[in-house]
């Protein structure tokens, strides 16, 4: 049971951390939580549907359908985060003038919120389908084992959900004048990590065959299956044995987010409280 709980927790943790960051960054906007929960719900339904069609999906793209779907989902999430960041950066200037910096996020419109809901939905979808298939596989055993596996799965989901909540609560406790900077940096890291993982999945599918060589091997120093490694993987796509393309994707996305923020972001006007 505990084995199942740990495995499911690991999947839910990855999604939960990302959702916690996104919710903390945008949760102050009116209707934001509705969009975020809507995204979670849509992702959960999508996971069930995807699990039902898992066999069909995996046969796409010459047998690499899963990898290609995951890469598409990740690229879509990066694009949504980039679009949302740009929208906030360009519209933030006038909002800051109208509403002072504290009210910056309160005026976020519904279009960027749809982007946020999409990011949440695809994040849940990405990990969720695997959890559904895993639990289905585990539950196919004998009666008592199956029940234990399902109980473990539920414990894993609840614990993963708690990570999202703790992350959210932790970030929203940061003083208001730092929140924008912190969440902008976290979202840039999150997006860069997603881009690196998208590169990994494209390479795992044989769709991208450049820069495949391993750049370093930290698997004995900081394995990605360790607690810190898992956290860094969820936060910024950490890999203990990254390929060149993964590092390029990470660096390029980080630079893009940094440039986008610095080109259009309003000058900080916060006064000490």
């Amino acid at each position: 049971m505990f084995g199942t709980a740990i495995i499911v927790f690991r999947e839910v943790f990855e999604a939960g951390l990302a959702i916690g960051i996104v919710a903390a960054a945008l949760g102050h906007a009116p209707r934001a939580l509705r969009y975020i929960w809507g995204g979670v719900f849509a992702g959960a339904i999508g996971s069930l549907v995807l699990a039902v069609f898992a066999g069909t999906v995996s046969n796409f793209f010459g047998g690499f359908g899963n990898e290609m779907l995951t890469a598409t989902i990740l690229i879509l999430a990066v694009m949504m985060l980039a679009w949302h960041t740009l929208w906030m950066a360009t519209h933030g200037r006038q909002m800051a003038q109208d509403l002072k910096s504290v009210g910056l996020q309160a005026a976020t419109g519904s279009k960027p919120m749809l982007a946020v809901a999409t990011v949440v939905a695809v994040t849940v979808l990405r990990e969720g389908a695997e959890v559904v298939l895993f639990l289905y596989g585990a539950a196919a055993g004998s009666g008592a084992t199956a029940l234990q596996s399902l109980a473990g799965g539920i414990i894993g989901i609840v614990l993963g959900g708690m990570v999202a909540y703790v992350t959210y609560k932790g970030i929203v406790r940061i003083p208001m004048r730092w929140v924008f900077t912190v969440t902008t940096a976290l979202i840039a890291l999150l997006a860069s990590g997603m881009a690196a993982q998208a590169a990994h999945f494209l390479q795992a599918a044989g769709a991208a065959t450049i820069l495949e060589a391993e750049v370093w091997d930290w698997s004995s120093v900081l394995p990605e299956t360790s607690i810190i490694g898992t956290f860094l993987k969820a936060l910024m796509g950490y890999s203990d044995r990254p390929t060149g393309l993964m590092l390029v994707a990470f660096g390029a996305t980080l630079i893009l987010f940094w440039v986008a923020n610095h080109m259009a972001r309003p000058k900080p006007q916060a006064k000490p409280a």
Partner: protein
Amino acid sequence: MKIFAIALFAVTITSPAIADEANANWALQGTKFDPPVLTVEAKSSFTLKFINNNDASAELECKGLKIEKPVVAKGTILVRVLNPKPGTYDCVDEPHEDEAKGQIVIK
């Protein structure tokens, strides 16, 4: 949605070119891997075809090789492993990891 079309296009133009490259075959029957120890030649990459002969979904996991992929009941998956290093790697069917164990040896 425009942005989804762009994402899909970006992935589609890079559709897998080496899907037929499978150079190792492995199967799961009950809790037994066939063969129990799979030997693969060390190259910059290899592609593994894994067949799940069971009536329940499975998940092939070989931690040292970064393999972690679900496979539906009676399904087949392909796994491409990059930069494998010579050695012996433990693998399991994750939902039944206490019983279903196999090994991949990279030579």
